[in-house]
């Protein structure tokens, strides 16, 4: 049997049989989708404690209306009629007469009441609210609370008040309210993909509605998957090779295999590990997406590219990390070198959002054609809804292929000369000299 394969087999077994591998395999999707899962779980967890709001109505026209509406709401909407469970908090409105002599003092007094938890918030309605002059304080409505940005109550009050203000304005114009109904019908612009033709039947397929899930989630997941795969297969090679060197396992192995067989065996072992994990995730992902009835978001056309890029990326990165590992004598050396070595993998993560937003822009195009970034960024661009020129993925893949060959060759040379060299870590200049000398 080929010695490279024997080494690869051992690497694969050693990696897959550990508990750590199983745990990572299970935890990764949770970690990856963690934010979304938490959001989904807490979506229906509404705060149902009742809210007491003080209203200082300087216009004198809206306060009472607001109080009436809130009482109606308290009686009608907050309890789920079927189950009897309280779904929303009740709102209690306290009308406070405006203190015209000392408005600032009144604000402070009410603010203190909020701080003492006597009320939850207070609202100040300007006097000129029906016919506002832009910018003036009297033409505005203020909502004061401890956390005024994330507040359902604020939204509801704003909606009720605007509704009433609009009603006043229409009444002044003397138009019947039914006639202006269409006036307030806001038309949304709907984002669509492109229409396409079925190559076999010739029928024209309606364009798909593009949604956030498809535009962002699909590229995001594919890229993240590739990143995590590298984290599980190629990057540990740095540590592993360093350990084999410092524990003198390397020299024992070099009694039966050549350094190149040794290094490639390790890289191929890592490759097999990554094919296992991505295989599990992608099949699992496809099955679960299909079961959710969203099979049309699966980017089947991108998957072959994904595997091609991943394969090359692992060989490219794996060789480099194995070679760097061979230059280290202990874990301190390895730690020092790990972060800089990971930069080519981290940079695509940083620029992912701009690339997803504008996949055809010159920034995205240029970045995705730099070989170390290509596997991740070209993939992201291909996974978005736009059609990128076909030469680009091909040129990108060719670049990656050349780069991979270079890193196998370069990594092999570094590995060969460093793997049994103990003592001080070689300086860059010595490394370069060895590269030339072989």
């Amino acid at each position: 049997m080929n010695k490279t394969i024997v080494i690869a087999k051992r690497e694969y077994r050693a990696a897959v049989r550990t508990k750590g591998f199983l745990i990572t395999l299970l935890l990764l999707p949770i970690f990856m989708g963690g934010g979304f899962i938490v959001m989904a779980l807490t979506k229906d967890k509404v705060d149902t404690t009742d809210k007491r709001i003080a209203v200082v109505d300087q216009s004198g026209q809206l306060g009472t209306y607001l109080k009436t509406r809130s009482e109606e709401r308290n009686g009608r909407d907050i309890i789920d009629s079927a189950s009897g469970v309280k779904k929303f908090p009740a709102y209690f409105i306290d009308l406070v007469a405006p203190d015209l002599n000392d408005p600032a003092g009144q604000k402070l007094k009410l603010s203190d009441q909020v701080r003492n938890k006597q009320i939850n918030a207070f609202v100040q309605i300007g006097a000129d609210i029906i016919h506002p002059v832009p910018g003036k304080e009297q033409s505005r409505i203020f909502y004061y609370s401890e956390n005024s940005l994330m507040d359902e109550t604020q939204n509801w009050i704003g909606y009720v008040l605007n509704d009433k203000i609009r009603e006043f304005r229409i009444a002044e114009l003397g138009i019947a309210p039914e006639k202006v109904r269409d006036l307030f019908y806001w038309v949304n612009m709907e984002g669509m993909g492109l229409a396409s033709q079925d190559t076999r039947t010739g029928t024209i397929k309606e364009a798909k509605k593009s949604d956030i899930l498809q535009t962002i989630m699909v590229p995001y997941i594919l890229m993240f998957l590739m990143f995590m795969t590298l984290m599980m297969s190629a990057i540990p090679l740095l540590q592993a090779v360093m350990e084999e060197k410092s524990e003198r396992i390397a020299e024992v192995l070099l009694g039966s295999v050549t350094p190149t067989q040794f290094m490639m065996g390790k890289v191929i072992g890592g490759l097999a590990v990554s094919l296992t994990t991505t295989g599990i995730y992608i099949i699992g992902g496809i099955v679960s997406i299909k079961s959710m009835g969203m099979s049309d978001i699966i980017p089947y056309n991108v998957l072959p590219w994904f595997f091609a890029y991943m394969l090359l990326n692992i060989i490219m990165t794996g060789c480099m990390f194995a070679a760097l590992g061979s230059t280290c004598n202990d874990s301190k050396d390895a730690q020092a070198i790990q972060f800089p070595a990971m930069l080519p993998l981290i940079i695509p993560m940083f620029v992912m959002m701009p690339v997803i937003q504008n996949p055809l822009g010159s920034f995205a195009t240029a970045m995705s054609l730099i070989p170390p970034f290509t596997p991740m960024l070209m993939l992201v661009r291909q996974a978005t809804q736009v059609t990128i020129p076909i030469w680009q993925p091909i040129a990108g893949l060719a670049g990656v292929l050349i780069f991979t060959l270079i890193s196998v060759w370069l990594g092999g040379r570094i590995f060969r000369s460093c793997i049994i060299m103990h003592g001080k870590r070689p300086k860059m200049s010595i490394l370069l000299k060895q590269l030339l000398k072989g």
Partner: protein
Amino acid sequence: MSNIIEISGITKTFGSHVAVDNLTLAVPEGCIYGFIGPNGSGKTTTIRMIMNILYPDQGSIRIFGEEQTGGNIGRIGYLPEERGLYRKMKLRELIQFHGELKNVPNPGKEADYWLEKFDLAPWARKKVETLSKGMSQKVQFIITIIDKPAVIILDEPFSGLDPVNAEVIREVILDLRKGGSTVIFSTHDMSVAEKMCDFIFMIYKGKKVLDGTLQSIKDKYGQDTVLLQTDLGAAALSDIDGIDRVNDFGQMQEVRLLPGTDPQRILEQVIMKTRISKFEMSSPSLEDIFIRIARPEKNNNHE
């Protein structure tokens, strides 16, 4: 007998340090060749160059009749000086893995055979990290010779082994030689080298200082040594002229005479002081030769 390894004029430098200096050596097929020399004298570097792990700066190494390019290391069993095993692997799996790497036809069966032979069978399914140092040594030896290679290179094979295990390994080495293998081993233990080796090669500061059969080496130094056993021990030798150096073994002293000294004169002087139970003219031991070369300027005490 043809030469299985031919080293001609190899030199290896690390920075400004010359580790091996213009070394030429021929190892005949089917012999046991001992490499001796003090620490840091170039033994391991020479061995690594034979293994193609290091490349000589100058000179050439031919092995199995062809230039050493690494293609033939599969036919060499190599036990490095510093040993390393995958600690998380189970013992039998590990031996099997190395067997596969060496293209052993039935690695599992071979593993069982050797585990049994070295009394390691009860540990077959234990992880390597649970083994004692001596056991790991034996495992290292097994993986070196599992494919009964034509050439076996052992860097300090007996260090750290108790006499019983050293005996087992010695037997296996001799068996392999009987089977036609050529064995090269380096050692600090001169008595082992003296007993086992057909040829002895000594390297000192990167240069070859001795090379040949034990007899030819000893003949070079002549009969300038007296083995002495007296009631007084080493004290009997104080204040006696004509003695170059005394290796004191406690019960016995190895006395090196100054050139031109008549052993009869020594005998006369010692006999005056004490009772002699042994007085034997001899050629120097390998150990003494080693010390003469490696520490020519040092004092007269054996350490």
